[in-house]
């Protein structure tokens, strides 16, 4: 089990490190598209090698992964279709060509995505190199390659993902950077499909970065959090799957989803935080509102009269009394004995100044 877990965690990190850049470029569906379109690469490679176990099938898959993106970029550059639409047009095209090739020429061969790309993490320990699981070695290598890419080109990636025009003026070849990112994504996806299966790879690419994105507003922390969250989801998911003897991929994907939901609820702008904040603010807000009201209607006996103020605020007597008493005890306002209207004290004026500052 330890080796299975190791393969999964490495996989999650190899995908996760590229995840933020993929989601920020609004290419979230790319891995989903890749998982289908690469079948064409497999079919084409099979025409040449005629061997289901050849590593060339994977290389063919990766090549067509890159082609998918190049082709859809080409389409969307003409501004007639949107970026994600283009992707959605290209991958069914590739997939259907692959199906046509396969049904026409290789009817008798068991050639489909499942055969070549539906890896199962449970089998990872059986294929070994250097006495380590083969997929662990491959995914660890890819992780290191992706990590170096992100570390070395961090600023360039950041600028070109954030502001394309600015990166042009800065002399950045942003298209080159984009294609390197896509090539790495494609290769990593194919290798990961082969090790742990497509659904899990899609989840590895998108969910942790979606959670991280909700928790921080700094790219560096988004990346670090993505890696950590991906690893934690994987570890929790694997343990649960082992305990109840259920699908590992399914469990990890499920946990990742739950994690995103939690992030949605609990992030700083999230639902829960908002509710708590609202309760806290409500009282302060009511107090400030009264102060501003008194300030705006300086000495107006009607607006500020002891008995009439509540009508102008359109509050119940209980409510206005509660807050007025609090303000009186805090010495922010006082009652002018002669005219029996509320007036701002020095403290109240200070607060107004603070409120009106931008």
């Amino acid at each position, binding site marked *: 089990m330890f080796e299975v877990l190791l393969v999964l965690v490495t996989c999650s990190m190899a995908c996760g490190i590229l995840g933020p850049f993929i989601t920020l470029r609004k290419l979230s569906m790319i891995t989903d598209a890749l998982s289908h379109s690469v079948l064409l690469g497999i079919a084409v490679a099979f025409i040449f090698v005629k061997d289901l176990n050849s590593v060339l099938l994977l290389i063919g898959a990766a090549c067509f992964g890159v082609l998918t993106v190049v082709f859809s970029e080409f389409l969307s550059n003409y501004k007639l279709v949107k970026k994600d639409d283009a992707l959605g047009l290209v991958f069914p095209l590739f997939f259907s060509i692959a199906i046509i090739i396969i049904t026409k020429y290789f009817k008798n061969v068991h050639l489909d995505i499942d055969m070549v790309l539906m890896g199962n993490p449970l089998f990872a320990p059986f294929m070994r190199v250097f006495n380590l699981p083969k997929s662990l070695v491959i995914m660890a290598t890819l992780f290191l390659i992706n990590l170096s890419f992100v570390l070395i080109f961090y600023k360039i990636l950041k*600028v070109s993902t954030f502001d394309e025009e600015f990166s042009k003026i800065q002399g950045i070849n942003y298209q080159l950077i984009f294609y390197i990112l896509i090539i790495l994504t494609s290769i990593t996806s194919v290798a990961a499909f082969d090790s742990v299966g497509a659904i899990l790879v899609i989840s590895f690419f998108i969910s942790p970065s979606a959670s991280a994105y909700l928790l921080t507003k700094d790219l560096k922390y988004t990346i670090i959090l993505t890696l950590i969250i991906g690893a934690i989801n994987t570890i929790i998911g694997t343990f649960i799957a082992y305990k109840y003897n259920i699908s590992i991929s399914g469990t990890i994907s499920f946990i990742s989803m739950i994690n995103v939901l939690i992030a949605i609820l609990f992030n700083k702008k999230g639902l829960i935080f908002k509710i708590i904040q609202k309760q806290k603010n409500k009282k302060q807000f009511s107090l400030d509102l009264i102060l501003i009201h008194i300030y705006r209607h300086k000495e107006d006996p009607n607006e500020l009269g002891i008995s009439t103020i509540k009508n102008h605020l359109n509050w119940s007597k209980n409510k206005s009394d509660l807050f007025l008493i609090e303000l009186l005890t805090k010495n922010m306002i006082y009652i002018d004995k002669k005219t029996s209207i509320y007036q701002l004290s020095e403290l109240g004026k200070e607060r107004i100044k603070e409120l009106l500052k931008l």
Partner: protein
Amino acid sequence: MRAIHIEDLTVAYEENPVLWDIDLDIYKGNITAIVGPNGAGKSTLLKAILDFVKPLSGRISIFDSSLKKNLDKIAYVPQRSNVNWDFPIKVFDVVLMGRYKEIGWFKKPSKIDKDIAFNALKEMGLEKYIDRQINELSGGQKQRVFIARALCQNAELLIMDEPLAGVDQYSEKIIMNKMKELQKQGKTIVCVHHDLNTLKDYFDRVVLINRYLVAHDTTENILNSNHLTKAYQEVGFDETAA
């Protein structure tokens, strides 16, 4: 001295020509306004200068050499930033980006670079917002962030597309004073500008365009001529020119 030299520039989007045969020199050390009605091609002119759109014909040189050789001397503030507003980045980091090129793409920003970025933000009156995500600002504040980023670049040539649009009067004064200060240091500034009332206060020279170049002269001469009315009318056939 010419900062920008444009010869016979014609630009089209798809098959629709927007700018016809522009010949124009922007002089070094001046603050030049580009003025014309909506859709006149002002932004397109700037984009052609920066090679964002490919011209149908013509030549453009910057400081008597190619754009490529002068990229590090140019800062640009677009009319509407097409940035990825949801990007996890704080206001301060956006401005610090203006320093990236000088820092080097593979090095960390130093204390000095951070100070420069902070000062630029402060000059734009945004020091309170440095920790906000970029999208958590108002329209005018966002605009000022991108001006601050341009200031950080220490550019020789500042190209700005309506930098004052959506900016309050107080900030407008600050921005234009800053431009005057940069001019004293020998920098060249080109601004698309819409407010004809402030032309005289802010600009040395005015370029009037409406699909073609209507006039280019000192602000005073432009204001004393009938070119302005001409620029804002439909482009018609000119008997005297034919």
